[in-house]
Each structure stands twice: as structure tokens, then as C-alpha cells.
């Protein structure tokens, strides 16, 4: 049998159920792997004692024949999910020392189903970034290296720690969140699978808020099926989130192996950006060929407002962020910089506590919401958002799913693309539309670029039709037979 850290989540579950391995040895293997690869900086906080205690309980339940759906499965939790009694930082200085007195609904669902907690993964500060270089706890290193080049690469962001941990085999799966691409872009950069489900599918309760109308939690793992298994546990109606959808949660994993014969796949012409790297274009064409081979029909579609999605996002998301982040006031929790007056206390605390990117976005948001500019910016962006959603509504008249590249490039070096904020924002050009329209999107590893770095394809589906998304993603995964592994990984 291969190393415990090389198992997929589904394989580990089967081995646990068959008592071929114990949850304790599985947890210990991952705890050790995290220690050995600490240089990746994938974790802000590890919880080895908690992991071993969880695992012991899982072993007892398995022995009693009372295993739950994720019994004994070691997971990493993005440090944006509040975990009761475990420090939660959102990778920001301003939350330093904050120990939530409550558990987020998504993580509570995972523990209810028997998962084992390995620790809290690094991220861009408040999930604002595409390279995991805005964290107050330092950069995360991508476990992949470009061929013949020893420079450290970014894992993508904002869920960079979760992506690196999954890719390097430090966990069997991880939670992540996606506001403009923060699950799918890091998945593409690390050769892992990540799905942002439909808005409302997973409760946002207890997740540190960035942009509430766009934020959505989802899983990252090494296979499509593993993501499907995790999402089933994470999802579900929650009265504590007013936007949580009261709809049944299907058995997503059952959809993964289903035939895609007869499915109509849309290929949006507006995603063929000028100057798009030839490698990305050929990967996309390869994906189209695979799906055709599997029995899908391919249809060129038009999503005419695609070009305006990112600029609209950079009004809507900062506006919501400026409002959400008003709560960090130095009074109720987190950092406090003493001052003589209340206003000075706020200004000093927030000036010292927020990093450069977060500050920029709060200021953009404050400006677009300020008197006299609200209509010109915020209202305009919301109207453009309506048009983007309408583009997709029209597309669903003729197709069942949409295939696009996940990112416009493979992982770049730490320090690259940092010249100006807008260059970094363009990373999310293919992913942000699904957030604005609230649709599910998955990134599946589909090939390597000339430098030996992974590239991903994205499948977007109708609202609450993750099953079709998983079906198509499963077909791509089978056709791609992606078996490349990163240079830095447990067991290597």
C-alpha cells in the first residue's frame, strides 16, 4: 500500500472502514508531514493534539460500527472559518489573539460527520488577494517548481494555504472560500480540484466576512470525487445565514462517475481574450475534444458582458468589504492601539492592523459608497452585475454547462505581478463571473505547461446544479488522467 498521505479521501475512508488503517495512524502521518514541510508556510496554526484526540474518537466509533461519513478524515481549515476555542486570524494582524467563542456552521458540519482537525491554513489577508502574499503570517510557497528554476512560486490565493496543503499531501482535503476565484485559481495553480458551489449552498455563518453577496465556502481536494464527498458534508440549510438556501443536498459523489453523453457544453467566445497564452488556448481546445469524445455536444455561446465583470467586481466587493470590515474597531476583539479619543483609537488600530491590500480595498469601497458617488459607481456596478447574470440565464437556454480555462496563466514567482494592483486582479478574469452570478464553478487539473506547472479547466453550471458540474469535471478528470505530482510533498 502506498504512503498514508498519498491516499485520496475516498481511498482513506474505505481503508478505515475495512480496518486496514487506523484513524490515529492516518492523523499521525499527516501531522508529521505538516511538520516536515513547515517551510511551505501552509498553516498559520497547527492543532496536532486536537487531531490525535479526534482520531482516537474516530477509531472508537469505527470499532463500535458507528462510523460517520467523514470518520477519521484529516482536514485542514482555511483560517477564515471561526473555530471555537482555536485562534482565528483571517491572516490579519487586526484579529491577532481572537479566539472565537463559536464554531462556523461549515466546520461544525464537518466535525459532526467525523472529520479530524489538523489546523488552520494560511490565506491572503481577509481573503483579499490572488497570490497569498498579503498574509500577515507570510507568503505560502507553492509545492510545485518550474522546471529548471528553483524560485518559489505562489500557490494562488486567497486559499493558498489550503491549496498548498492539499497538493503537498499534508491533508486529505481542506476548506476554502471563493469571493472572486479564491478556491478555483489556487486549485489551478497547485494541480488540485476546488469547487465554489452555488451561492447559498454552504452557510456563511461563522466565516469571517469579506464581500457577503459573493463569498461562498467550498472544498479543495486531490480528486473530483473527494470534493464531492466533502461538499455534501459542508453544505446544507442554516437558519443562521439569511442567504442560506433551503434546498436538499444531493449525493454529489454519485454524480461524479456518471456519463456525460448528450450534455450540451457551452464555450463562451468572450473568454478568448486577446493575447491569451497559446498554452491556455490549447488546453481549452483539449478539454473541448475530451468532452466531445465523451459524447457531449459543443456549442459556441456568447456572454457579452464578460469584459465588465472584473471592474464591476472591484466596485461591489470593496464596497461590501468596507462595510463588513467596519467591525474591526479595537474595542470588542482583536488588536487595540491605545489612543486618547475614540476616533483616534479607531484610526490608530485600523491603520496598524490592516495590511496594504486590505486598506486599499476598504478605501476604494468607502469612496464608491460615499455621498455623490454611490450612483455613478456602486449602483452602476450592480446594474452591470444584473447584465452578467442575465448573460448566463440566456446561455442556459441552450447549454447544460460551460467550459473555460480556470486561469490566464500558471503559477508565477513570488514578487511577480506585484507592480500594480490591477495586474494582480486580472488573475480572476475567468472565475469572477460565477461569483457575480452566484453560479457553481469547479477547477480541475487538466495538464502541464511548458515549465511543468499545472493548469486547470473550469466548469460552470446552473444554480444548484453542482451535480452536472461534478459529472463534467469527472469526465475531464478521467480523460486528462492527470498524475503529475509536485516536487515538495509528503513522502517525496
Amino acid at each position: 500500500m502506498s504512503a498514508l498521505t498519498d491516499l485520496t479521501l475516498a481511498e482513506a475512508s474505505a481503508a478505515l472502514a475495512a480496518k486496514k488503517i487506523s484513524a490515529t495512524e492516518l492523523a499521525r502521518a499527516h501531522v508529521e508531514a505538516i511538520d516536515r514541510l513547515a517551510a511551505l508556510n501552509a498553516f498559520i496554526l497547527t492543532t496536532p493534539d486536537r487531531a490525535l484526540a479526534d482520531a482516537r474518537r474516530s477509531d472508537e466509533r469505527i470499532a463500535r460500527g458507528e462510523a460517520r461519513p467523514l470518520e477519521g478524515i484529516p482536514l485542514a481549515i482555511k483560517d477564515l472559518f471561526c473555530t471555537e476555542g482555536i485562534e482565528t486570524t483571517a491572516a490579519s494582524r487586526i484579529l491577532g489573539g481572537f479566539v472565537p467563542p463559536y464554531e462556523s456552521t461549515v466546520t461544525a458540519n464537518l466535525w459532526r460527520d467525523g472529520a479530524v482537525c489538523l489546523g488552520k491554513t494560511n490565506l491572503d489577508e481577509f481573503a483579499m488577494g490572488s497570490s497569498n502574499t498579503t498574509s500577515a503570517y507570510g507568503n505560502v510557497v507553492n509545492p510545485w517548481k518550474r522546471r529548471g528554476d528553483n524560485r518559489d512560486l505562489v500557490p494562488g490565493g486567497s486559499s493558498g494555504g489550503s491549496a498548498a496543503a492539499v497538493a503537498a499531501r499534508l491533508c486529505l482535503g481542506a476548506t476554502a472560500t471563493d469571493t472572486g476565484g479564491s478556491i478555483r485559481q489556487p486549485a489551478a495553480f497547485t494541480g488540485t480540484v476546488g469547487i465554489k458551489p452555488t451561492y447559498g449552498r454552504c452557510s456563511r455563518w461563522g466565516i469571517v466576512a469579506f464581500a457577503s453577496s459573493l463569498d461562498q465556502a467550498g472544498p479543495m481536494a486531490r480528486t473530483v470525487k473527494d470534493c464531492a464527498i466533502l461538499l455534501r458534508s459542508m453544505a446544507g440549510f442554516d437558519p443562521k445565514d439569511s442567504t442560506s438556501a433551503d434546498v436538499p443536498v444531493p449525493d454529489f459523489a454519485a454524480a461524479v462517475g456518471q456519463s456525460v453523453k448528450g450534455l450540451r457544453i457551452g464555450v463562451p467566445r468572450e473568454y478568448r481574450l486577446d493575447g491569451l497564452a497559446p498554452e491556455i488556448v490549447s488546453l481549452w481546445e483539449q478539454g473541448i475534444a475530451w468532452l466531445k469524445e465523451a459524447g457531449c455536444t459543443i456549442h459556441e455561446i456568447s456572454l457579452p458582458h464578460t469584459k465588465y465583470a472584473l471592474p464591476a467586481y472591484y466596485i461591489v466587493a470593496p464596497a461590501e468589504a468596507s462595510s463588513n470590515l467596519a467591525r474591526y474597531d479595537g474595542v470588542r476583539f482583536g488588536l487595540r492601539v491605545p489612543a486618547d479619543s475614540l476616533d483616534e483609537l479607531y484610526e490608530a488600530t485600523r491603520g496598524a492592523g490592516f495590511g496594504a491590500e486590505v486598506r486599499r480595498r476598504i478605501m476604494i469601497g468607502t469612496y464608491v459608497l460615499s455621498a455623490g458617488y454611490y450612483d455613478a459607481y456602486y449602483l452602476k456596478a450592480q446594474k452591470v452585475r444584473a447584465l452578467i447574470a442575465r448573460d448566463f440565464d440566456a446561455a442556459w437556454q441552450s447549454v447544460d454547462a460551460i467550459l473555460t480555462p480556470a486561469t490566464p496563466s500558471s503559477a508565477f514567482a513570488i514578487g511577480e505581478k506585484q507592480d500594480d494592483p490591477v495586474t494582480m486582479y486580472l488573475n480572476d478574469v475567468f472565475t469572477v463571473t460565477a461569483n457575480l452570478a452566484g453560479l457553481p464553478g469547479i477547477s480541475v487539473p487538466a495538464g502541464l505547461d511548458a515549465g511543468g506547472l499545472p493548469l486547470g479547466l473550469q466548469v460552470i453550471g446552473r444554480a444548484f446544479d453542482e451535480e452536472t458540474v461534478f459529472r463534467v469535471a469527472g469526465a475531464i478528470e478521467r480523460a486528462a488522467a492527470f498524475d503529475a505530482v509536485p516536487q515538495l510533498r509528503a513522502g517525496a
Partner: protein
Amino acid sequence: MSLDAETIRRIASLARIRVSEAEVATLQGELNGILAWIEQLGEVDTEGVAPLSGAARMALRMREDAVTDGGIRERILRNAPERIGLDGAFFAVPKVVE
């Protein structure tokens, strides 16, 4: 349209974020770069389009108007950087009224 240094200072003050004079200049360049890029939304004809405020395309739920939580003072105060009063029952702030 371009933001001048005075406007940057005003936005920072509205956002209650202290920025140094050196940062004002940096922020001015960055924010103007972002706003110039955003300006392209002006090309889109949005006449008669209803704004979309959220991705949850469903009506907000109603629930019974009943108290469902409470009695957790200590849990709420536990993370306070500074507390005041008997049993530390209050969040502490600098003196607001003379």
C-alpha cells in the same frame, strides 16, 4: 476623474484608517489606477436595468419574532482587549463625553 491628496485623506478619515503622508501619495497613485480601470463600466448601457444586489435570487425568509439567543455576556466580552466596570462587564473606550 482623478482623486487629489486631500480626497485621499478624506476617504481615509471616513474609513477611520490612519495613513501617513508618504502613504497618501502611494494610495493616490494606486486608487487612481484602479478607478481609471473601473471607468470602462461607463461603456455599458444600463438604461432600465434593475440593479442586482445579491447572488441569492430568492426572497429573504421571515421567522417568528422571538428571542432565540442571549445570556452569553461573558462569551461576548471574552475577546475584548480592555474591559471596565464591576466583573469587567463592559467594553472600555476612551472617554467620549466630558
